[in-house]
């Protein structure tokens, strides 16, 4: 029986288990406090934070699609100062790892917000969001070009010694090239994937359903795409990967682990079932057991082509 779900990511970042709340779906943590046992989560990645407050996109900002959710939030956030002052104190009262998702319009803004968050009590890691499809400048732009992805990652790397996750966009021809660029620039972990650029039409209104026109698709619909990207990247980079996209249950988590992820993030399903992450953590040992595994370590990358498994094992500091 797998009893220890603990994992260790680079720079000594230890998680009690591999299940982390995905950025943007869990607010700044405390909103869900009365529905979820936050202390039992492996970690919480908070909503993207920028140097100054951002207004976000016009509503409607969400639209349901077949087994998917389109969103166009546009990274509305109160800015890093308000986050540090108001939200962080509440959040750090929970015994979990806090990952702050950061965002900027320019490389300099990414650097600024990273610097400001470094040495803040309760901030355990940064997740550089170079993949948000819902803003006009910055965001996904940086994640679609290897040079820009490198530049942002390097600037943030220079500004902080916190563990650095870089979150990749699926909306590219080759996710591997971007992954290699951010690895070369000093990323400690790759988060994959952010949402898939999509659109819905409100046929009654004869216009795009979302206020921001296009939006980001999340939820079970994108799981196969997310798994493919994790599987491709795991064969070509050495740093660990946190996989996400459409996870609904412990079996889905095992799929991501087998495809090469060392941990996972869980987003959209929380809207339906606020405590689903807790349930997944409870059920994971049984599912691993029934697949014949004695430890989490054995599972990671087991579905990769034979020659690539060692890569992941080397990377897998788990």
């Amino acid at each position: 029986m797998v009893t220890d779900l603990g994992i260790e990511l680079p720079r000594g970042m230890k998680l009690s288990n591999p299940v982390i709340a995905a950025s943007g779906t869990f607010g700044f943590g405390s909103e869900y406090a009365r529905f979820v046992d936050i202390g039992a989560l492996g970690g919480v990645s908070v909503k993207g934070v920028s140097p100054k407050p951002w207004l976000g996109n016009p509503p409607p900002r969400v639209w349901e699609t077949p087994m998917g959710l389109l969103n166009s939030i546009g990274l509305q956030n109160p800015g890093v100062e308000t986050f540090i002052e108001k939200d962080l104190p509440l959040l750090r009262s929970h015994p979990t790892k806090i990952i702050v998702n950061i965002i900027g319009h320019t490389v300099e803004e990414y650097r600024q917000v990273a610097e400001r968050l470094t040495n803040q009590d309760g901030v355990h890691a940064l997740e550089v969001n170079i993949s948000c499809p819902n803003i006009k400048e910055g965001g996904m732009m940086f994640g679609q070009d290897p040079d820009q992805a490198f530049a942002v990652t390097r600037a943030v790397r220079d500004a902080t010694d916190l563990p650095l996750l870089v979150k990749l966009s699926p909306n590219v021809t080759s996710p591997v090239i971007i992954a290699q660029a951010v690895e070369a620039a000093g990323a400690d972990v790759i988060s994959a994937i952010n949402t898939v650029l999509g659109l819905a039409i409100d046929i009654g209104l004869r216009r795009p359903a979302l206020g921001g026109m296009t939006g980001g698709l999340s939820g079970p619909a994108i799981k196969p795409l997310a798994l493919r990207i994790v599987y491709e990247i795991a064969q070509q980079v050495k740093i660990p990967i946190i996989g996400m996209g459409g996870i609904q249950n412990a079996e889905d988590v095992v799929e991501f682990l087998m495809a090469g992820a060392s941990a996972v993030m869980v987003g959209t399903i929380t809207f339906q079932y606020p405590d689903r992450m807790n349930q997944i953590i409870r059920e994971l040992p049984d599912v691993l057991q029934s697949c014949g595994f004695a430890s989490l370590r054995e599972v990671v990358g087991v579905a990769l082509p034979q020659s690539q498994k060692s890569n992941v094992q080397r990377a897998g500091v788990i």
Partner: protein
Amino acid sequence: MEEGKRLTCPVVARTQAAEGHVELILQSRALARAVPGQFAHILTPGVLRRPISFSRIESENDLIGLLFQVVGSGTRWLAERSIGNELDVLGPLGNGFPAPDPMKPWAAVGGGVGVPPLFAAVQKWSHLTGDRPEIIIGARTAGWVVMENDFKELGIEPIVTTDDGSKGQKGNVADPLSLWLDNHNEAQVYACGPIPMLQAVRRLSAGRATTYLALEQRMGCGIGACLACVVPTVGDFGLSYRRVCTDGPVFRGEEMMW
């Protein structure tokens, strides 16, 4: 205000409230402590829960009502629930209406499925105010007028308007409201309905009455975490998007930027 919880609530009654409109009565001690204007976020087969306001709140016997129009997959599924089925609900959520000032004239203006939360408010507070509140309810057509009889059972005769004139006054709720406002000073107007109706209410009331508007918006989490459900409001530095689920659903008319 009551803190929302995740609840499992049995359906104890189901009525056909109008053509294509169903009211479910749920038994729940926690929900029955809701404030009118608050809502339940209900699990249906889709990827998102569905927000529905309380159409009645009976704290004496732990019952609440959900009255909705069947417009898509979620409400269709809800309409198929029957007595004994249980619903998975987050609630009560959001900020409801404030209790009306007993000293001031009060009107409640509802359009379509905006009527239910106003009925809950009137049911709770109509005995507080000196005069009975003025009730104005509008609908597209006669078959879609909801809760008229419920108001009558409280002893209040609502003014009914329909767009096609098939029942009550032809037209929308603006005309009777305008008339009422002409005759009442320092009034308070509670309203819920489509945006153009709420805009008319705000315009008519400007400078004459305090307005409380219960808004709708497409929601994700329902509890303030995802910033999906925003509406444009007047902020310190101009436009500011605020959340219907936790900053609302009830806003004061002058807060809105439309």
